[in-house]
């Protein structure tokens, strides 16, 4: 597997050499591979295959919540806590792509500047590029690259989400849901979706009005949820006073502690293995879609067939189900998918 590859400057280099560099923690190679995966370069997929045996050993923490809730600031604080424990850290910070221009303004790094020069912290911004689940399409791949680099902990910060952009559950071991006061009444806390996925709740900006009420409502919600004596009940950490460093630091240490306890609980309870299985199922599902559905769609788009079928559906000459079955039969039986 050492066929020569060409990078964007036309240089040839060895595939296994790149893999080795990434496993040795080389930021340049890792960052380039993440970019190649985002840009769907075919050679990138091959490299990821080589890296795969070196992945799966990092602890992955998801941070999610509404826009402006303070996710990046908390990520910055957690990086600080993890570095105190001498852990190496990868950070993936996702921000939305414009549905109009396809461009994106990735601004999460602004909150994490103090870690920019720490060689044991690798921060990478990702744009969603049309993905709707709160993460970027390449987020899973980028996590693998950081795992292969040997990062002890990977923080994944989602875009500012609403109620159900929950793709993070397929990627993270522990999920921090960041809430802020003033987002609505107690019915909001009872709804399905975001409120169900938290392993740790943060009430951020807790020095603002409404924080106590939110805490009461959240506690009531958690008390009302059925759980056995050994089940994990998400702790609630109230964090405020960003501009009073000592108080803030004490609170973020409390948050780190809650996440560490959850990690231990996952391992003791066997849920770590369950979450790993859930992730593996998602990965094979995604990979199947990438190697079966995407090539078929690409071909139908390229030869204009998709457009013709769409027209026939619009005029009701045919229906989408019949067409899809016919296409499936054609491609699957002949094995003709590339």
């Amino acid at each position: 597997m050492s066929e020569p590859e060409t990078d964007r400057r036309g240089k040839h280099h060895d595939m296994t050499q790149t893999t080795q560099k990434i496993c040795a923690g080389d930021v340049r190679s890792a960052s380039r591979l993440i970019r190649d995966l985002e840009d769907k370069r075919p050679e990138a997929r091959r490299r990821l295959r080589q890296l795969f045996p070196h992945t799966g050993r990092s602890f992955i923490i998801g941070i999610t919540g509404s826009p402006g809730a303070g996710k990046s600031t908390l990520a910055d604080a957690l990086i600080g806590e993890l570095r105190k424990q001498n852990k190496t850290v990868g950070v993936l910070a996702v921000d939305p792509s414009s549905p109009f221009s396809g461009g994106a303004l990735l601004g999460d790094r602004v909150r994490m500047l103090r870690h920019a020069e720490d060689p044991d912290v690798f921060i990478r911004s990702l744009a969603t590029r049309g993905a709707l689940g709160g993460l970027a399409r390449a987020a899973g791949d980028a996590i693998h690259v950081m795992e292969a680099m040997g990062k002890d902990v990977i923080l994944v910060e989602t875009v500012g989400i609403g109620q159900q952009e929950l793709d993070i559950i397929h990627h993270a071991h522990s999920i921090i849901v960041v809430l802020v006061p003033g987002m609505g009444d107690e019915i909001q806390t009872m709804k399905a979706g975001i409120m169900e996925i938290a392993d740790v709740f943060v009430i951020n900006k807790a020095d603002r009005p409404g924080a106590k009420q939110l805490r009461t409502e959240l506690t009531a919600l958690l008390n009302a949820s059925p759980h056995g004596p050994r089940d994990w009940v998400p702790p609630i950490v109230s964090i405020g006073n960003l501009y009073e460093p000592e108080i803030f630091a004490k609170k973020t240490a409390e948050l780190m502690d809650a996440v560490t306890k959850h990690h231990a609980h996952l391992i003791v309870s066997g849920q770590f293995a369950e979450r790993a299985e859930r992730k593996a199922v998602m990965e094979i599902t995604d990979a199947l879609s990438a190697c079966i559905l995407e090539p078929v769609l690409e071909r139908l788009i390229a030869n204009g067939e998709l457009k013709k079928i769409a027209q026939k559906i619009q005029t009701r000459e045919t229906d989408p189900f019949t067409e899809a079955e016919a296409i499936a039969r054609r491609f699957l039986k002949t094995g003709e998918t590339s």
Partner: protein
Amino acid sequence: MPERKIRVMVAKPGLDGHDRGARILARCFRDAGFEVIYTGCHQTPEQVAAAAIQEDVDLVGLSCLSGAHRILFPRVVELLREKNASDIAVIGGGIIPEQDFQMLYDAGIQAIFTPGASLDSIVDWIRTHVRTGN
């Protein structure tokens, strides 16, 4: 093969908090379809270079209105070279007297845009000069 997405970073090195121009450019690059990493004010050249590498950008746009461009801009280029990342283009803008242009070009700054430059001219320059290759 799908086209490469252009990634750029907009940064303000040094002790200069006047970021209106940098923000307008970041927004304009976003609307041009680029992915823009915006890192804000008060950064050291070391922070800028490290972030550019972590983000694998094609280009770094530096803004400086304080007069320290003669030191800060070349330092970013130098650091990128040291880290084997000289393929990342560096351009600059802000209040830069014409007599400094040559010195900056010589130091490896590939283009300089001063007040009056149109947003389109900057976007066009990037599209033409950034080699995202295939």
